[in-house]
């Protein structure tokens, strides 16, 4: 911590003095290297993946994202209005993955990643807690302690705190959006970032420097004594670092085309930060709208639109980051899956088991998990059962890809079972 203060102060004084023109030798090792080094440099000498954690708010209908068409009538009879047809080679049916499961046709952009061997699905995954409440389920999932609110931080935050290394970059953990995701909250500060381009002090040009020093003084950022001052300190550190690179010029590689929605643009910013080598270890981003109680549609319609947004964003990120993928793990989760049987409104109510998705150079394509099927005797209150605790997937990522073995601190009291989705680094 002593070291942290020193580095922060150095940065701050550099910021106030104006950093332009200072040689790179003066910068701490985690300063942005974009302007100095065009090639990727792993932010962490210990060889760790950057983690991108995606939360699908609202409860994704995993049974229509990765369709168990092999279940036949057990699936089709329960969903007369919204089922996705068995694969027939067309784009009006599921895209065959392994002869039993198929991908929603709107997610076709991800088939390249699947074919490249870097996309895994874990079906019947979720939280063991039975709640069907969005807010409880999200909170438990993001804390990493189902049924227990006494833990003081989110699971990603406990990962950062318990890691054997520390990293004083304000970009160590970034939450894309106006709020920081629950998984990132806790004693290790996380940055909330809406827009790289807009992350600077506004107001009169001729006053920026004076204004910045008055605000620093008002918030006492040299000795932040409370959470608000700590946030203020982070703002200045971040503004100073972002002023180093001209993000307007960012050109995604390999012709990647990020969709224009918030999720796509958020992934684009994460890609920029990874390439800028600013010390990013974890980014969290949300994609909402999955609470499909009504008119969710089948091949087309609302769910297909959402699934398409997700897939297009991820595919663009994969394309842009192809050279970096050996050092990136992307994981998706959602608070719960949805009811097997469709409701009166052509939608689905809150369910339980769901599908998680993992993308990255360290993963091996496949449909993982313990699939027990959809017959009534194995359903959980009418819902797909949870047969894989989502923490199993995260634990494997933490140990094999992020280099943190302190699982007893991240998921206290839980004994994970590894699914062997990943190679060790």
């Amino acid at each position, binding site marked *: 911590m002593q070291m942290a203060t020193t580095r922060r102060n150095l940065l701050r004084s550099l910021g106030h003095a104006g950093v332009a023109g200072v040689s790179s030798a003066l910068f701490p090792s985690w300063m942005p290297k974009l302007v100095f080094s065009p090639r990727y440099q792993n932010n962490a000498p210990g060889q760790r993946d950057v983690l991108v954690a995606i939360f699908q708010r609202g409860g994704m209908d995993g049974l229509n994202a990765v369709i168990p068409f092999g279940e036949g009538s057990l699936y089709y009879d329960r969903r007369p209005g919204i089922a996705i047809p068995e694969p027939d080679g067309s784009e009006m049916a599921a895209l065959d993955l392994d002869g039993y499961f198929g991908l929603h046709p709107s997610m076709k952009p991800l088939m390249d990643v699947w074919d490249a061997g870097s996309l895994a699905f874990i079906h019947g995954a979720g939280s063991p807690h039975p709640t069907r409440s969005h807010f409880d389920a999200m909170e438990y999932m993001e804390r990493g302690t189902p049924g227990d609110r006494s833990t003081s931080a989110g699971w990603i935050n406990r990962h950062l705190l318990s890691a054997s290394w520390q990293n004083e970059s304000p970009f160590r953990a970034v939450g894309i*959006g106006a709020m920081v995701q629950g998984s990132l909250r806790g004693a290790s500060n*996380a940055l909330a970032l809406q827009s790289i381009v807009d992350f600077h002090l506004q107001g009169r040009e001729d006053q920026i420097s004076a204004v910045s020093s008055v605000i620093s003084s008002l918030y006492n950022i040299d000795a932040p004594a409370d959470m*608000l*001052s700590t946030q203020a300190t982070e703002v200045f550190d971040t503004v100073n670092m972002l002023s180093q690179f001209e993000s307007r010029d960012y050109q995604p590689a390999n012709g990647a085309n990020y969709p224009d929605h918030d999720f796509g643009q958020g992934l684009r910013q994460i890609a920029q930060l990874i390439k800028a080598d600013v010390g990013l270890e974890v980014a969290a981003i949300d994609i909402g709208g999955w609470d499909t109680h009504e008119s969710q549609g089948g091949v087309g319609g609302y769910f297909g639109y959402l699934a398409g947004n997700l897939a297009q964003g991820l595919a663009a990120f994969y394309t842009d980051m192809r050279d970096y993928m050996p050092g990136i793990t992307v994981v998706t989760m959602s608070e719960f899956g949805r009811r097997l049987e469709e409701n009166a409104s052509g939608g689905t109510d809150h369910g339980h088991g769901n599908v998680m998705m993992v993308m990255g150079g360290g993963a091996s394509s496949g449909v993982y998990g313990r699939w027990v099927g959809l017959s009534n005797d194995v359903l959980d209150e009418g819902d797909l059962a949870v047969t894989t605790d989502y923490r199993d997937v995260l634990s494997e990522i933490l140990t094999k890809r992020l280099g943190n073995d302190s699982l007893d601190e991240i998921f206290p009291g839980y004994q994970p079972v590894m699914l062997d989705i990943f190679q060790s680094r």
Partner: protein
Amino acid sequence: MQKTSRRDFLKWTGMAAAATAAAGSGWISRVQAQQGVGPVDPSWHVLNRLTWGPTPADFDRIADMGIEGYIDWQLAPEFIPDPVVDEWLSKYPYLNGSAEDVYRATDRSDYVYTLVPWQRIYRAVYSERQLFERMVEFWTDHFNVPVGDLMGEKVVDDRVVIRQHALGNFRDMLLASAQSPAMLYYLNNAESVAEHPNENYAREVMELHTLGVDGGYTEDDVKAVARALTGFTVRSSADGEAFYFDISVHDQEPKEMLGHQLPGGRGIEDGLQVLDILATHPSTARFIATKLVRRFVSDNPPPSLIESAAGVFLTTSGDIRQTMRHILTSAEFMSSAYMKFRRPIDFMVAMLRALKPGLSFGDRPWLVWSLEDLGQLPWSWSPPNGYPDAAVAWMNTSGLLNRWNMALNFPYASDGWYEDIQLDLNAIVPQVRTADQLVSAAAAAVLGSPVRLTDQDRQALAAFVTDEGNPTLPLTEDIRNDKLPTLLGLLIASPQFQWT
């Protein structure tokens, strides 16, 4: 908690200092340590919480009426004339009309989409019924319906559910909400039928509107309530949309919920009984009390106050006014100064009330978009739980930087930066002689009093005004005019302004 005497108020506010330091607003402990400033001025605390930002007129009133007199006056909004808001609203009759009126207006003009969030801001700034508007905000979150494609229905819901009952009876409000087309569409009860009930509303009405998630219901109760509420739907006719009970899709089988047997063969009585059971359940009293105390007292609601407020709620059969009176006159409330972090809309409205701009609705609703950047566009939170209340959700880098930028830009409305906002800074900051005096006068305008600045704050602000010169020398008119907008912006950006 019993009624509180004036002297008790003072005693309790004395406790505020210690408690506040623990709550994490470091600046107030610095101010108090340095200046020996005693208890927080209780009038200031009451105004900070009951209003959307105290103005000099509010100070005059509370000095006149006394603290309890002021609280009681604000608790009876029906007796408070509100001519400014009334006149403004009269220009937009569809805001007082039906959903169809609103949609017809949107066909004529795109401005409606920004006018609707704008009216929320406008009323918060200008209404004399300040506490009522804060209650409206509370219930808008509690019975959250995002406008999405329901703008017309939400305009009606705001009037006949939220505003009609904001200080009324909770059971009446719950019944109104359950029959509001906005809610029936948003949480899908409108399409719920006996063969395949839609559980969306049934679950949220227990989890979010009444019992709370730990209120003692089961998944079976969710299913039973969904069945009981089948048939609560909307019918469109020549007169517009209205609640309609459709017996033909109602599940008439017997049901059991929360230990109550609902006999078979009934119609709308099923749903009405369920709502009645929920409205009067002790878990509901506790849940509503907890949320009110969290909003009006502290992010860590004192258990003693939750307990006593829930008791008032129960014994008065859900009288919101009595419950609020109990909370606002409690010792716990009086000793909670500076424990609440302003949410983005609180921040923006407080800024507007401090600067008193003339606001007209032009074609550049800058303030609406700014609030969207801050993450709290009115009526636009999509999940059913409403915008978060506690500081932890809002206190982050992005939010803080956005506040600073808004604060630094907005006072330049006085230079005509925004075509629909007129601002006269000389009307709120009197002519003074020196930079030191200018800092004090500006602090009085924004923070209520210069005593809320530390010496370090004053020095930094005065150094800004004088470009590091001598703050005790006379200021020229040019320098005052050049520096005043940013000086006010810095005070609005200060940590002091973020807490109430």
